[in-house]
């Protein structure tokens, strides 16, 4: 971990983001295909969620098996406020983000007393409870059959009701999210988080408020998930509980693990690639629907094996976790 001199290093991740922004803007100019744009909306939503989860996971060393629940909280909040109560879309989106953040706070505060795997179970339990709530609170959520006819986003009187418009909105937010997370990682709190990760006692000794840091990171990652949920609800127009279930949370974890939890770029790329995979037949000529159907059929196996393999053989980001953790382990006594 050598120090790096010079301003050049500051430019590079932002350069990558600018390049990405150009690419994102170019896509609708190169293809008018509505379906491709709709698929890319799903990708953008997932990128926002994964950015938050990678921040939590890789840099604060916390695991969340329930992030899909925060996406759901955001989605239903915004859908209910805008569709049922007639609130303006911006209000819905902000409320969605705030409520998800609040949920993150409520979970993080007591959960921080728990050790690694207990926390995982707590977030898992939270996801399952929210699933039951989504299913049973029919007056608000429409129950098992979901909530449809969610209005398009509307900003300052301008209705964003074309596939291109929704695509640009979602990816605009996604790029801003990546910028935000990148800046956090490079800022003092970000470095503090990584230090905390390395040796907690060391970080404490340096006067870093580890507990506060963890809580804020958890809340932020939940907020991002909620924002993604709001965008999804209005972009797609229909939401139902199964979209926000445990299976989805596990897939998010798998994406971050496979992408390499120590960085942002890895998980984001993994998110893009894995979200596009089920639609690859619409995107790559020569791939038939049947081939994709077969791949979809084996998706869970592939995810599971990939997770195990990455963790065992190619830790990459997890490697950093391991290296630092083994230093910690030497002093740990199992009570």
């Amino acid at each position, binding site marked *: 971990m050598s120090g790096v001199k010079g301003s050049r290093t500051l430019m590079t991740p932002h350069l990558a983001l600018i390049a990405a922004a150009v690419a994102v803007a170019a896509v609708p100019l190169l293809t008018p295909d509505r379906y491709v744009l709709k698929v890319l909306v799903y990708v953008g939503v997932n990128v926002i969620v994964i950015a938050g989860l990678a921040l939590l996971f890789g840099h604060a060393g916390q695991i969340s098996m329930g992030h899909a629940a925060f996406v759901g909280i955001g989605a239903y909040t915004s859908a209910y406020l805008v569709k049922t109560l007639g609130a303006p879309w911006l209000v819905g989106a902000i409320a969605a983000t705030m409520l998800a953040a609040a949920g993150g706070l409520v979970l993080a505060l007591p959960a921080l007393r*728990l050790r*690694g795997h207990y926390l995982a*179970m707590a977030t898992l339990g939270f996801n399952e409870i929210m699933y039951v709530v989504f299913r049973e609170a029919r007056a608000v959520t429409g129950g098992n059959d979901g909530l449809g006819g969610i209005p398009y986003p509307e900003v300052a009187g301008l209705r964003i009701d074309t596939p291109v418009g929704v695509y640009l909105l979602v990816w605009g937010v996604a790029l801003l999210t990546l910028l935000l997370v990148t800046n956090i990682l490079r800022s003092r709190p970000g470095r503090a988080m990584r230090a905390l990760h390395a040796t907690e006692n060391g970080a404490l000794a340096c006067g870093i408020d580890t507990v506060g840091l963890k809580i804020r990171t958890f809340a932020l990652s939940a907020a991002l998930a909620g924002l993604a949920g709001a965008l999804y609800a209005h972009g797609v127009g229909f939401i139902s509980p199964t979209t926000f279930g*445990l299976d989805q949370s596990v897939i998010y974890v*798998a994406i971050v693990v496979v992408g390499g939890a120590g960085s942002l770029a890895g998980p984001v790329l993994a998110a893009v690639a894995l979200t596009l995979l089920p639609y690859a037949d619409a995107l790559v000529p020569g791939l038939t629907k049947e081939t994709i159907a077969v791949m979809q059929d084996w998706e869970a*196996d592939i995810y599971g094996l990939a997770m195990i393999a990455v*963790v065992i053989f190619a830790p990459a980001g997890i490697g950093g976790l*391991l290296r630092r953790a083994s230093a910690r382990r030497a002093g740990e006594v199992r009570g």
Partner: protein
Amino acid sequence: MDAAEFFQYVIAGLKSGSIYALVALGFTVVYGATGIINFAQGEFFMLGGVLAVWFHSLGLPLPVAGIAAVAATALLGVVFERVALRRQRSANPLVLVIITIGASMVIKSLARHLFGPDELSLQEFTPGPSIDVAGAAVERQALWVWGLTIVAVLVLAWLYRRTKLGRAMRACSISHDAARLMGIDTARVVMVSFGIAAALGALGGFAVTPLTQTSWDAGAAIGVKGFAAAILGGLGNPVATVIGGLVLGLLESLSVAFLSSTYKDAISLLVLLVVLFVRPQGLFGKARRGKV
């Protein structure tokens, strides 16, 4: 509500509670030996039922099919430990948890590929009408469930108290390092623990399939409930775990009786979260000063 109806709910609660107890014992045994939560425990439960159906369809008589299913699952547990977990012994618990999550995904999906997406049934071990006990109807299969649970618990108790292996397991659960210093082969203890946990889960799956049918995705829900039961009783303490399972089953059943059936699933989850946040050591466990 009259006595017969109340008793019916108690019966239902004890019935599901025994299943939770078996699955929860699996969590406890693994936790005691390794200190980690095995996220694949629910899948062992699923395999017990699914494999029993398959063996039975191959022509094996029902009891043999059941024993074969339990044995096969136990073997899978052992193999899993050796192949995927053993080399990671010194690793961050986070890593081990991720491995068990990955294993759970793979096992579940393979089950769907091998055995199909539909419900699978087994006939009751001793078909016949339900037995009337004080106005409540008790299915014959429920008697089997209780019987097998009691046998499993007794065998486990005997193992822990009377055998060298059992004492080694208890030593490990107190302190891994101390046990190793005493010359105990901790690696073997871990391996056997996984086998036992898998066998217990599979036994539960096999016993309950005639009542509820089974399918490739039957593991997830029971895994969460089994863990809630283990936490409720006190992870690491087998007797407490069994009590936790029965209590959870009763809580669920009585909540249906007095509240509403729609929130039945939420009860176990609420219990899980409340216990984790208020009293992580469970009803019977000792308070520990855990590091963050």
